[in-house]
């Protein structure tokens, strides 16, 4: 298959692994792949098995489902429980546990929750169901944010009054800085998120290389992409360099995508702060709809519902005390490996996840669980 097979060529993979081995001679490095897609690929293709153990992968905070705090999940699901509301969400969101169950469980109990592949599908549901309020549960980094923005503009163009978006879009640079600012963490370099860079451009990582003196190699998602990116990263590390390199040039431009940037700037503005699961509040790390689009903002349309929900939740918390906590943050920051968590594979499993990292196939824990290493030979 074109665009796939050439990036999985066994001979090239073997020779690239050989190159990595020689670059690693007598050295050890810790490399963070920020993006959940890369985490998935590393496990899916068994890349860790091929590489020297002195090259350690730290799985970073780049899975949009995993970093969403449970309160936000609850709030989205609360909207689905309102009379006459249809909630539309990406497949990734369907199994994420809230306090009172996941979207899939609530759907099975009768709520109208639909899985969509694009926000435009959610818009179509709104067009087809004029008597219902359709809420799109928007998640993702800059990768998926432009599609949401365009959908809001489309809703405006169509004059829809029954479509809103529950915006949970986040930005990729602030959490990278947060991870680097953590004194406990030692990261030598980054495999830079690829698809998000199609929007923000590879140049967006310049500040990481400049301010923290860490090399960043923007990478594709096939085995050879990731291996070649490691070669580039190791060469920089061995030479004491800290630059941004773009391995994924067939998809990622150096400059930001002008069209997407315009649309994002038109529709969204930065939130002063946003809570990240495991990382806590990070300043200017997420967006919301600008005031002129407030009629499409679920947080405005359902402000009262959400405010009451938050009061109830707070009361509940005071009564019950704190619920069971999961050390997802430590995994997200790479302080511990998924299987070093006491809950991993025991209380927390893909069929009954306690933490979001166990939900999405991009979550480090689910990837580790599903594709756990077992060498055949």
């Amino acid at each position: 298959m074109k665009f796939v097979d050439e990036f999985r060529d066994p001979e090239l993979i073997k020779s690239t692994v050989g190159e990595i081995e020689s670059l690693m001679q007598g050295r050890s490095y810790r490399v963070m792949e920020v993006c959940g897609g890369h985490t998935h690929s590393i496990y899916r293709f068994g890349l860790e098995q091929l590489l020297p153990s002195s090259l350690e992968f730290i799985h970073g905070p780049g899975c949009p489902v995993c970093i969403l705090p449970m309160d936000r999940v609850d709030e989205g699901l609360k909207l689905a429980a309102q009379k006459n509301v249809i909630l539309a969400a990406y497949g990734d969101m369907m199994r994420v546990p809230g306090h009172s169950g996941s979207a899939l469980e609530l759907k099975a109990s009768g709520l109208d929750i639909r899985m969509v592949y694009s926000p435009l599908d959610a818009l179509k549901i709104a067009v087809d169901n004029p008597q219902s309020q359709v809420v799109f549960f928007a998640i993702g980094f800059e990768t998926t944010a432009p599609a949401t923005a365009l959908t809001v503009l489309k809703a405006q163009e169509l004059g829809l009054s029954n479509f809103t978006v529950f915006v949970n879009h986040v930005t990729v640079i602030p959490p990278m800085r947060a991870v680097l600012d953590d004194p406990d963490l030692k990261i030598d370099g980054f495999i830079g998120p690829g698809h998000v860079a199609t929007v923000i451009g590879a140049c967006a990582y310049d500040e990481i290389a400049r301010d923290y003196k860490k090399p960043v190699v923007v990478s594709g998602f096939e085995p050879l992409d990731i291996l070649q990116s490691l070669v580039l990263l190791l060469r920089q590390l061995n030479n004491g360099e800290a630059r941004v390199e773009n391995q994924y040039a067939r998809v990622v431009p150096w400059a930001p995508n002008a069209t997407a940037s315009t649309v994002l700037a038109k529709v969204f503005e930065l939130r002063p702060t946003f809570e990240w699961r495991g990382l806590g509040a990070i300043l200017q790390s997420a967006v919301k709809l600008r005031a002129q689009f407030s009629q499409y903002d679920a947080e405005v349309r359902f402000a009262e519902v959400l405010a009451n929900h938050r009061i109830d939740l707070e009361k509940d918390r005071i009564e019950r005390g704190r619920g069971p906590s999961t050390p997802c943050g430590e995994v997200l920051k790479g302080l511990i490996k998924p299987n070093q968590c006491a809950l991993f594979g025991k209380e927390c499993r893909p069929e009954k996840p306690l933490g979001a990292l166990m939900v999405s196939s991009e979550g480090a824990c689910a990837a580790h669980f599903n594709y756990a290493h077992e060498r055949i030979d």
Partner: protein
Amino acid sequence: MPISFKDERIELAHGSGGLAGRRLIEGLIAPYFQNDLLSKLSDAAVFPVQAGRMAMTADSFVVKPLRFPGGSIGSLAVHGTVNDLAVSGARPLYILANLIIEAGLSVAILQEELAAMAQAASESGVLIVGGDTKVVEHGKADGLYISTAGVGVVEAPRALSAEAVSIGDKVILSGAIGDHGITVLLARGELDLSADIKSDSRSVWPLVKALLEACPQALRWMRDPTRGGVSASLNELAADCGYSIVLEEESLPVDRAVRGACEVLGLDVLHVANEGQFLAIVDAASAEIALAALKSTPGGSRACIVGEVVETKKSPRLLVRTPYGASRVVDMLVGDQLPRIC
């Protein structure tokens, strides 16, 4: 005088057991399945039994949409039942089919499905010898559900079971995987994606029969990898026999369009449902003979040896070995596979 059925839609009255119900059964349904066992329309079909062993199975079909490229709920109900018997080493003989119809279903659609069942039964060499019909309120079912029971006579000379499997046995797959699951997923129209593929829904009995004739003593275990795909079937086998199974990724037959859809949607083809394939575990010494028998049977040209049974390291698992030397564990799915966003 023959009873005729002239209504355009199924109504609750058709399930009442009164005259309307009789008209539905005798005037519409039964004529599609003319055979001596059915024509008496008594409370049970009575048939002679042969010496030996018989196999019996049950299945239910709730597919949405009812029709999809390459098949429909009617043909699927017959093939699914026939295949459960076939992979048990049994020649399929008789099927009971229960129809649960949603009030409001157009009679034309019901007729299409009855015709599809009749055709699939005839092609599979089985008789539909009876069944039950219920009508439920509008909104309580997706048009039509079919529940079946099947009976067959066992032709495999030795018991097919996980206990018969041993280290070194080969895994044979009857043909390309993933077609049915991807076809139905796309036919739902929820994803803005189309591809030129159709369901693989068919009876696998002719292929099983070829295997039974070519190497009756070498056949250890068979399964049709329907829901949960190859992964579910082989994970169950691993758990039951206590050994691990290793598949060679390169040797898995997958059509281009199916592979493309899986890549785009982030699905693993090993989890995707099939309705016209089966997996067989065969003694290594007879594996090539078994493969040749399948390949020379119509519909078996894409059969191949895809892996083998190996010693268990930690716990019995299904593993896939990549062509570049890495391997990954393929676990059973928790729920449905959900497409990924990025």
